[in-house]
Structure formats: C-alpha cells, structure tokens
C-alpha cells in the first residue's frame, strides 16, 4: 500500500518545523494560526462562490435551462459579478429595528459555519483541529447558527421575519435530535468521536456498507434531517418565499444578506462533508475486497479528490431535493420529525448497539 503518497501531514509537519526553527514556539503557533485562518478564509470564499454557481447550474439542469452562461467561460464568473453587486448595494437602514442585534445576526450565522469547517478532515493529514470529541463539537457549533437566524428575524421588527425565525427555531431544534442520533449510530460503530479515528475505522469498508441496513437507514435519516437543519428545500420554511416573502432575511440587503446566503451554502457543504466523513469513509478511496488491481488504481486518486467528490455528490443530492419537491408545511415538518424520524432513529440506534455488542458488523 502506498499510504504515504498524497499525505498532507508531511507538508504540514515541514511547515511547522521550519517555522519553529525560525522563531520562538509561541510565535510559531501564532503564525500557524494566522496561516490556517487565511487559508480557511480563502477556501470559504471560494467554496461559497463555487457552490452558488453549482446550485444555479444544477437548478438549470433540473429546469431545462442553461443557467448562467454570460459572465466568463460557462458563466463561471457570474457569482463574482453577483458578489460585486451585493458589495456595492446599499445597506438598507431599518427604522425601529434593534440595530445592534440586526447587525450582529449575520455574523453569528457566518461564524457558526466558519467554526464548524475547522474540524473537518479534508484529506489525509489536512485537518485544522482534530478534537477527540470532533463530531460532538461540529454538532454543537452548527446549532449556534440558528441563534443568528432567530436574532435576525426578531431584530428586523418585521412580522414576516419573525414568523420565519420562529419556524426556523422550531425546525432546527427538532431536527437537531435526528441529526445527533443518526450520527450517534456511527459513533457506536466506530467507538470514537474523534473524526480521524472514525475515518481510520472505515479503512476496511465504509460504514454505510459495513453497518448493514441500520447504517443505511441512519444515513438516509441524516440526509433528510440535515437538509432540514440547514433550512433548505423542501424544508426551507424559514424562507418560504411564496408565504413569507423571504422569511428571516426579508429586511436584510447588500452584504448582510450575502452573509446569510453564503452561510446557507457553507452549511450545506459542512453537512455534506460530515455525511462523507461519517458514512462514506471520508477521504478514503473506494476499496472492494479481493479486487487488488482496482483498489490499487483507486489508491492513486488523491485523498482530497475522494473527499470532495463524495461531498459534492451529497451536495448534488441535496440540491436535487430542493429543485424537485414542493415545500412542506410547518406542522407536517414537525410531524415527520417527532412521529416518524425520531422513533425510527431511536429503534435504529438500539439495533445498532445490539449489532455492535454481538459483533455482527464486518
């Protein structure tokens, strides 16, 4: 096996060692933090731009259209043009809004998604912090975002925004349970909450294959619940443009709106990358038992490509949902969670615990 190729830990170690050689350890850490921050900021911006473009292209595919095709080759620069437009737009001042909270809300939303992205293992050895409670940290941090939505909806002093924010609150709190429980099933399988450990446990097969049917059920539940948690169609009740005009961000304009918009896409990426890490083996290549030649070829594909290919596949599926289904109603949404997904999930968790206890999984 050629585990060493495409291993980012060598690169990061090299940077670390050279920095430590050049300056005191404290400064080395500070410089490293700055580098990581800058890399993530750049990555974040580029990812946002790309996902918006991808969404528009996927949407166009679903709707018999061409999609953006004027700015740049294949419309690739369209989102940059959009960004410039949003940056130059006037920030509308809302009379009688709670100004401090109104301005704070987009930052909370975007910081929440920014914090979550830090713990995601992008490739072998490419992970900013490998916490021993990694998955727990991500679940905790992503749910901070809803506070931003609630604050934004409340502070806008608009009735539509408030309804949207309240819907969003009810929705995210409910679906948090299903997301947590379905991820718990993988934690039970792998016996660890550390993301690198979870990936290592999938070296001989992804959990979606190894974990029999219960793991597959957990994966499906995760997909549904995660879509709901990031307020995307068919669960986009917080926005629901045909009912609440634009829901919680009705009153936001310019770059503050762009923050909400960007955070939505980054959240989608986070959710998809967690699904990849937990169920689809993260950056591990696809291996099939006894197919030595096939496995060798797969090994030559860099781990970062594997990670992004899987993640974008999940993102594509989430987009596919959005552009084909009608929106649910708020009571149907909560019924789905509390009456169907949650009991199913609890049973599923017990079944998984039993399987693990008996050692029936591969």
């Amino acid at each position: 096996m050629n585990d060493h190729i495409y291993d980012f830990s060598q690169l990061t170690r090299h940077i670390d060692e050279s920095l430590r050689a050049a300056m005191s350890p404290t400064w080395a850490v500070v410089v490293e933090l700055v580098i990581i921050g800058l890399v993530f900021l750049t990555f974040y911006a580029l990812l946002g731009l790309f996902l918006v473009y991808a969404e528009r292209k996927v949407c166009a595919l679903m709707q018999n259209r061409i999609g953006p095709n004027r700015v740049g080759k294949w419309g690739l620069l369209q989102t940059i043009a959009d960004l410039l437009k949003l940056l130059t737009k006037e920030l509308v001042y809302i009379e009688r809004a709670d100004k401090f909270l109104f301005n704070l809300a987009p930052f909370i939303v975007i910081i929440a998604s920014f914090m979550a992205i830090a713990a995601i293992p992008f490739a072998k050895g490419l992970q900013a912090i490998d916490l021993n409670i990694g998955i727990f940290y991500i679940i905790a941090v992503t749910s901070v975002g809803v506070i931003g939505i609630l604050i934004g909806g409340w502070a806008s002093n608009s009735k539509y925004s408030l309804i949207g924010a309240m819907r969003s609150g009810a929705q995210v709190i409910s679906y948090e349970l299903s997301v947590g429980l379905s991820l718990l099933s993988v934690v039970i399988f792998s016996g660890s909450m550390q993301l690198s450990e979870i990936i290592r446990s999938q070296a001989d097969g992804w959990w979606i294959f190894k974990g029999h049917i219960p793991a597959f059920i957990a994966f499906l539940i995760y997909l549904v619940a995660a879509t709901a948690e990031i307020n995307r169609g068919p669960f986009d009740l917080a926005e629901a443009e045909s009912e609440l005009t634009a829901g919680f961000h009705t009153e936001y304009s310019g770059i503050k709106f762009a923050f909400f918009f960007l955070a939505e896409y980054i959240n989608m990426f986070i959710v998809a990358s967690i699904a990849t890490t937990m169920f689809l083996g993260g950056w591990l290549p696809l291996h099939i038992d006894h197919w030595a030649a096939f496995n060798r070829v797969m090994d030559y594909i860099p781990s970062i490509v594997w990670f992004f290919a899987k993640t974008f596949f999940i993102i594509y599926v989430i987009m596919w949902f959005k552009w084909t289904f009608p929106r649910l109603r708020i009571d149907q949404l909560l019924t789905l969670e509390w009456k169907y997904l949650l009991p199913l999930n609890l049973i599923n968790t017990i079944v998984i615990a039993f399987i693990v206890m008996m050692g029936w999984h591969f």
Partner: protein
Amino acid sequence: MSEVIKNYIVRENEDYIVNMGPQHPSTHGVLRLELVLSGETVKQVVPHIGYIHRGIEKMCEYDTYKQIVHLTDRMDYLSAHINNEAVCLLVENALEIEVPERVKYIRVVLDELTRIASHQLWWSAYGMDLGALTAFFYGMRDREKILDIFEESFGSRLLHSFNTPGGLMHDVHPNFQKHAMEFVKYFRKKLPEYKQLLTDNVIFRNRTQGIGVMSRETAIAYGVTGPSGRGSGFSCDVRKIAPYGVYDQLEFEQILYEQGDSFARYMVRMKEMEQSLNIIEQAVDKITDGPFTAKVKPIIKLPEGEYYQRVETARGELGVYVVSDGKKFPYRVRFRSPNFSNLFVLNTIARGHLIADLVAISGSLDLVIPDIDR
C-alpha cells in the same frame, strides 16, 4: 348558513395582523389580504382590492362596441380571447348576425388553446406557490408552444384582440390548423410529466388534500364558478349548461369532483386540459374554408334594450351585461367577472388553516387580479 361569517376585521388583543400584499409573491398581482393570525393559524382573511381598478365599465360607456372588445382583454388577461368572444357574441346575438361556420370553429379552437395556456400558467404558478420551483419551467415550456401559434396568426402573444363583432379581425395563418394539431400531439405526451412532477408527489398531495374544503352549497352561495366551483361538485360549466358558439356540437365532458378541497380544484384543471385537447382535435377538423367575418356595419348600434351574455372563461363564468339606448355607445356595461366572486370565498374556506395553506388555497382558486378590479 348556520354560522355568520364576518368579512371585516374584528380585532382581539392577542391577534397578530399581517398584510399579505399588495406586493407579495403568492398573491399573483396587486391583491392585499389582511390576515388575522393566531400563531400561524389564520383566523380571518379580509381581501382589499382596487389597486388595479381602471374603471373599465366606465370607459366602456364612451367606447363603441368594437372598441369595448379591446378593453375586455385587459380584465382576465389569461383568458383574453374568451373575454373578447363574450362581447362579440353579445353584439352578434343582439343584431342577429349569422357568423360563418369557419369563424365559429376557429373561435372554439382559440378558446380552448387559451384555456390550456391559462391552466398551464396556473399549474406553473401553483407549483411555485407550494415551493416546487421546477414546475414553473415545465409549464412555461409548453405554454410557449401555444403562444407561438398565437403569434404566428395574430402577431401578438397574450392580448391579441383577434375577435371582432361578426367574426375575426383577419384570417388565421395557413399553418394554424397544422400547428394546433401538432400542439395537441405534443402536449398529450407532456401531460404525464406534469403528473410525475406534482400530481403524484406525496408532499404535494399532503399539502393540498383536505385543505380549503368548499362545500357545494358554499360554492353556489358565493357564486364560485369555473374549475374552482366544479371541484366542489357544482356543475357550472357554461359551455354545457348554456352552450354558446358551437360547443353543443362538440363532445366533451364537464369535469366534476366532489371533494371540494384544493386537490380537487387542481385535478379539475388537469382533467380540463385533456378535455380541451379533445375539443381542439374535433374542432380543427371542422374548420372549413369560407369567409373570416360576416358583413357588419362599420358603426354598430344595438337596438334599445338590455343584453346579457354568459361565457366560460378559464376561471369561471363571465357575464357581460349591456344596456343600450340605441346609440353607438352603450348606456351601461357591466362585467360579471368570475374572479370577483371566487376571491371572496377565501375567508370562508381558509379560516382555521395555516399561512402555508392559505397560499395553497388562494393558488387553487386561480385568481387573476385585474379581473377582480376591472
């Protein structure tokens, strides 16, 4: 009726009052609905209209009969052709003008094409109302084919004012029959897609079934006609009950559903599109050669008296009431627009539902606001 339903706002302390409109994505025009909410539950819907009131009835009093035809386009712009026909039929009946057979069948084909185009637009917009954004593009794609047929013959796509008392403005394009038949074949193939995308979708069914139930009695009491009324089992198709033109010589069914919910109203329109295709197929074959208009005097003067003409537009029964004093301008013109009555049933059937349901219900009533305000 046992319960007295108040159509004006009665405020209580805890009520949350939201103005939906006049600029709102799902009111499809400048309609303002004042909602009294308790949480998300709608306690009352009070429609406020008049944002696009143009005084068409008053304008008609200063126009000749040929000019009035052009004003009717601007009421229900999606059934423009059928509105035109209402005035034309009224004048023709009053003056006892014998319209050529060719014209009668061309009018039927155009009526039904208009009806299909209108239903397609409604279907597209209904999908959007319920959050299925992709539906819009499928509906619009097929509607484009009809508009192309219109454009080929009349030069305009939406408000073609092609009818005139006595016949048509000019003859249709030689390809008209061919293209109409091609459209029938094309659209028959595309209708299953509509079924796959929305009709059979579980979420869609849950969002519409049992929502906004309107009993037959309510429909009659509020004068709800058209597909909305027929979804409640109210047999109100003017094409059947008081046939005009050549509808009595064509075979088609009046679609009736008994449930009276949003889904029933939806299904009536879906089935009606199929029926319209059948009508077009029959009528296209019967378009004979001949003149495109009867001989009509340049200035039409109706004999003194009152005239009433009912037609079935895509949204219900349109009544044109004309009082003539024998001059070239009518003394009084009144349009009984279907949407006017259809709108005001909203309060009765939407109360107790959620905001999302209100959108589903008002969408299923298929309102066109300029027709309400006139």
